[in-house]
């Protein structure tokens, strides 16, 4: 089945130690998104890639970076995790973002713990 895969499902890191979360998709979608979801809160869009074009949300901290080496893979890098970065990180994909009706397909998320 076509899907969005996130690895690992659970990640523990230390305060200030860089960490990378990965996402892959078999849907061949143009767009890949990264969301941060803290407990009992709405998922918050961090950034997205439309093909190779990177689009950062205005309020995404510089501590968060992303890479998309090819259509299938996208990575979220947190350069110096703080305690406030502990959250669920969701990856999503969609087709042409200019079509408003296109739904986003989500992965199961990676829960990040910062010690």
């Amino acid at each position: 089945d076509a899907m969005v895969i996130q690895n690992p499902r659970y990640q523990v890191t230390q305060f200030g130690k860089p960490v990378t979360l990965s996402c892959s998709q078999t849907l061949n979608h143009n767009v890949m998104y990264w969301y941060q979801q803290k407990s009992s809160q709405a998922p918050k869009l961090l950034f997205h890639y439309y093909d190779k074009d990177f689009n950062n949300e205005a309020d995404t901290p510089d501590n968060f970076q992303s890479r998309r080496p090819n259509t299938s893979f996208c990575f979220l890098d947190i350069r110096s995790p703080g305690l406030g970065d502990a959250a669920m990180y969701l990856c999503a994909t969609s087709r042409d973002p200019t079509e408003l009706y296109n739904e986003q397909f989500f992965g199961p998320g990676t829960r990040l713990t910062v010690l």
Partner: protein
Amino acid sequence: AQTVTQSQPEMSVQEAETVTLSCTYDTSESDYYLFWYKQPPSRQMILVIRQEAYKQQNATENRFSVNFQKAAKSFSLKISDSQLGDAAMYFCAYRSGSVFMRFGAGTRLTVKP
């Protein structure tokens, strides 16, 4: 700025009964879509139903239907004949040309057998 508000943090329903989840939004845009997503425990979020702002007819998908009141900026989700598998977090979301996806805070639905 476009905002999405879900005023019910938690709801519960008896199996086979009907429940309505509320969502209101604020926008000055005329062209947008509204979505309801379901996030079961420890599983990925999936689309339940979507509604185009220009369509007056309310969307329906099997047991799921919406009540879209554009003037009131209201977009509620009705789940009929609730099943145990409907237990999840439900997120209302807004999408437009300037907003890729803005979610509400969610409503946790419990289904009682």
